[in-house]
């Protein structure tokens, strides 16, 4: 098999649509194009049937009732709807305090910041250095007026899996609405919403081999959770989210989640083998640091910092692989990853991190290529690095007085 570059190792950013999913979607663009809300003819009925079958598939992956699934445009919208919708609905009865985590996705952080501007108060918990939340610290953050907590299932940058069951139980005991962003979790970890004490859960299709532009929000029925709509209009999705349903996108998400349910176990075993191969190859390089707990983590993710090389030059050096960097200095600002900063990583290590994310179509050959590329390029950049030279000379860089500029 021949290797084509660049090699895609950014499955946590997005996944390709599985060909089986694409094939299933196509007839819904040209043939079964009806509006699922049309009640008066067969075009509408056929589309509605497809939408409901897909809803059933999404529900099955997470062991929920299909009536608990609300279609949205993606996880960002689901997070906004859940957080603002529940905060607004329940603030009058419970209070105006929200607990979330500093390492959440921006699609959780920003809605919470928006609520702060409206007069809510928020606690952004710092995780432990391994990326996981200390349950005692979570408990300590609870106030009598805490109305909502939002904790992501799987972190997008470092792949760590939070103990959703334990946090959910604490929320139940304290009568706090619990939202979970599961965009990075579907098809990677088992989700059983009959057992998990979660009230609201956000999903995305395009992280699980479905199309972009479609997602869902789980809204628990027993006990019933109420949310205030953020999008007003024709009263679709039982008034929680108005807007004509994109049948083809929904069909794609349903098929993607069906495949995830059926193939998840084998796929995760294969991906774990690849991840371990990558890990073993990369830790043979000196001065590398894995970011986030290596055990409580999805097999798909490996986030590593390479000390004494700078982030942007690292990304330039590895252009044959498509990965994400913890450094945002390719944009105008020199802001390193806020997730890695929250773990207590230094600016330098945060800047020089790379997130490798492995997926359905990654091959062993691609992993081997990546390992040898990284070894070669890290070696070259360190040859060029005065910091590496000082490190080899035994200089403690933290003791040097740098002329900041």
């Amino acid at each position, binding site marked *: 098999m021949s290797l084509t570059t660049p090699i895609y190792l950014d499955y946590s950013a997005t996944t390709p649509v599985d060909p089986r999913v694409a094939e299933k979607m196509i007839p819904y663009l040209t043939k079964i194009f009806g509006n699922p809300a049309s009640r008066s003819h067969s075009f509408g009925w056929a589309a509605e049937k497809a939408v409901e079958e897909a809803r059933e598939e999404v529900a099955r992956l997470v062991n929920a009732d299909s009536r608990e699934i609300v279609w949205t445009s993606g996880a960002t919208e689901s997070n906004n709807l859940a957080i603002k919708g529940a905060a607004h609905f329940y603030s009058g009865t419970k209070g105006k305090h929200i607990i979330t985590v500093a390492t959440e996705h921006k699609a959780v952080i920003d809605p919470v910041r928006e609520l702060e501007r409206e007069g809510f108060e928020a606690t952004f918990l710092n995780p432990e250095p391994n990326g996981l939340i200390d349950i005692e610290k979570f408990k300590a953050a609870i106030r009598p007026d805490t109305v909502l907590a939002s904790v992501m299932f799987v972190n997008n940058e470092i792949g760590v899996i939070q103990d959703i069951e334990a946090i959910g139980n604490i929320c139940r005991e304290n009568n706090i609405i619990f939202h979970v962003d599961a965009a990075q979790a579907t098809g990677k970890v088992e989700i059983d919403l009959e057992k998990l004490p979660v009230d609201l859960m956000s999903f995305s299709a395009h992280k699980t081999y479905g199309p972009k532009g479609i997602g869902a929000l789980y809204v628990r029925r027993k006990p019933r959770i109420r949310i205030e709509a953020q999008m007003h209009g024709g009263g679709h999705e039982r008034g929680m989210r108005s807007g004509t349903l994109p049948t083809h996108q929904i069909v794609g998400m349903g098929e993607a989640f069906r495949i995830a349910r059926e193939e998840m176990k084998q796929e995760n075993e294969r991906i774990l083998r690849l991840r371990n191969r990558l890990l073993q190859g990369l830790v043979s390089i000196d001065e590398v640091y894995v970011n986030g707990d290596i055990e409580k983590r999805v097999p798909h993710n490996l986030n590593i910092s390479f000390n004494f090389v700078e982030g942007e*030059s690292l990304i*330039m050096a590895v252009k044959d692989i498509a990965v994400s960097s913890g450094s945002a200095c390719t944009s105008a600002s*020199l802001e390193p990853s806020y997730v890695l900063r929250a773990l207590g990583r230094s600016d330098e290590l945060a800047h020089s991190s790379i997130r490798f994310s492995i997926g359905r179509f990654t091959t062993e050959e691609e992993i081997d290529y990546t390992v040898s590329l990284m070894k070669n390029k890290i070696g070259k950049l360190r040859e*060029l690095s*005065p*910091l590496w030279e000082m490190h080899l000379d035994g200089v403690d860089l933290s003791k040097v007085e740098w*002329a900041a*500029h």
Partner: protein
Amino acid sequence: MAYSDKVIDHYENPRNVGSLDKSDPNVGTGMVGAPACGDVMKLQIKVNDSGIIEDAKFKTYGCGSAIASSSLVTEWLKGKTLDQAAEIKNSAIAEELALPPVKIHCSVLAEDAIKAAVADLKAKQPMNKETV
């Protein structure tokens, strides 16, 4: 980041990477920047007995344009006197490499590195001091 071909060329084939003997009285060393800011440049120059820069070496921790800026100045420095070297302006570096506006600071850092190396050398060679 859309870099010019010249930046890419210097980044991929950096000129004059390495180190000179710091304790050599004919070698001046300039180290500028800070790891937390994302770039550190070490620039070294070596003069011959007539005060002409005959060798220049660099090592840079930084982005592509920081590496390119320091690589470029090592080429420019050779054959110059210390006074000529001190006249190299960041704007000339930025222009030569067609640096985008957000990367102008890399050329500033390279200019600072030259000044620091020249100052270090002059401090070592007091007879040159009056030409500062």
